């Protein structure tokens, strides 16, 4: 790999990190505005028992904002990228399971919206992109760390 390739890949990781980071800060903030509505969105998936729904609704918004902020900082990007890759797997599984069970719902991903199956498919696709992006950033950050470790 040439130095030019490496720089290009660094810029790619930076661009992905910024895009995902800003998107998650926005998504977390929009959920934080109406936790009750978000709890209803989680309940609509019919996956969690009642004792876990509100805890999930209270945890996810700060988690998303924290991950978004950590994605913006090179030193913390790696952990945030792994967290968001795992989050994407969780969201994707929940959406696909809801689609398979014939449910029509609003995932509450970016605040309140109308329940819609086409939107659920779209959001499933976005989660695949999110997973790919977060994984790219994670692997890239891990590789950079290994290079730095060997250099010191």
């Amino acid at each position: 790999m040439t130095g030019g390739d490496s720089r290009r890949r660094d810029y790619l990781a930076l661009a992905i990190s910024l895009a995902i980071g800003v998107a998650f800060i926005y998504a977390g903030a929009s959920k934080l505005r109406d936790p009750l509505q978000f709890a209803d969105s989680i309940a609509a998936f019919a996956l969690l028992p009642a004792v876990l729904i509100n805890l999930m609704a209270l945890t996810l918004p700060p988690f998303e904002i924290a991950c978004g902020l950590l994605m913006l900082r090179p030193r913390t990007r790696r952990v945030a990228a792994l967290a968001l890759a795992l989050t994407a797997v969780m969201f994707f599984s929940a959406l696909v399971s809801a689609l398979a069970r014939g449910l029509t719902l609003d995932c509450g991903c970016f605040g309140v919206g109308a329940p819609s199956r086409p939107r659920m498919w779209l959001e499933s696709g976005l989660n695949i992109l999110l997973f790919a992006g977060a994984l790219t950033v994670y692997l890239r950050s891990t590789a950079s760390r290994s290079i730095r470790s060997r250099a010191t």
Partner: protein
Amino acid sequence: MARDLVLVVLLAVASLGVGLAINHYSSQPLPLVYQTPEQRFDAELTTLVAAPPFKIAPAATIGLPEFRTIVDAKRALILDARPSLFFAAGHVPGALNLSRQDFARDYRRLTPTLKAARDQPIVVYCAGGDCHDSRLVANALLTLGFSNVSVFTGGWEAWSAAKLPATTGSAP
């Protein structure tokens, strides 16, 4: 990788702590256990009819002659606020049972009829004498946006004492 996973778990735990703290200081905190919209509505309705009498917005009251005219002419939706057992034993013809005791359940059961009568005259009665159920139900309906609600203060006691027609069973 394992170290990163531990950090992710720590991040999730910290987020839970922050979320609980935000919820604690929120003006409308979530309860720890989720309630469905139906359960929340039921709780809200139950709170409405449990309001102490001194908080009641005074609904208009009517006497027996006026109530009888209204019943005969079917000019209003008549609601019986007594428990279903008493309603089944005897009630004003055409009345529906919206009991204070099971207000949330009855309100949901009668929602289509009640919604259609939102701006129509509604008269509520209960046992009569010192009973407060009709006033509590009338107040709850006014709070829920019904605009024309009054109370027949004589209640079932005055109606039956005048030997006026009665219907038995759970049907109107």
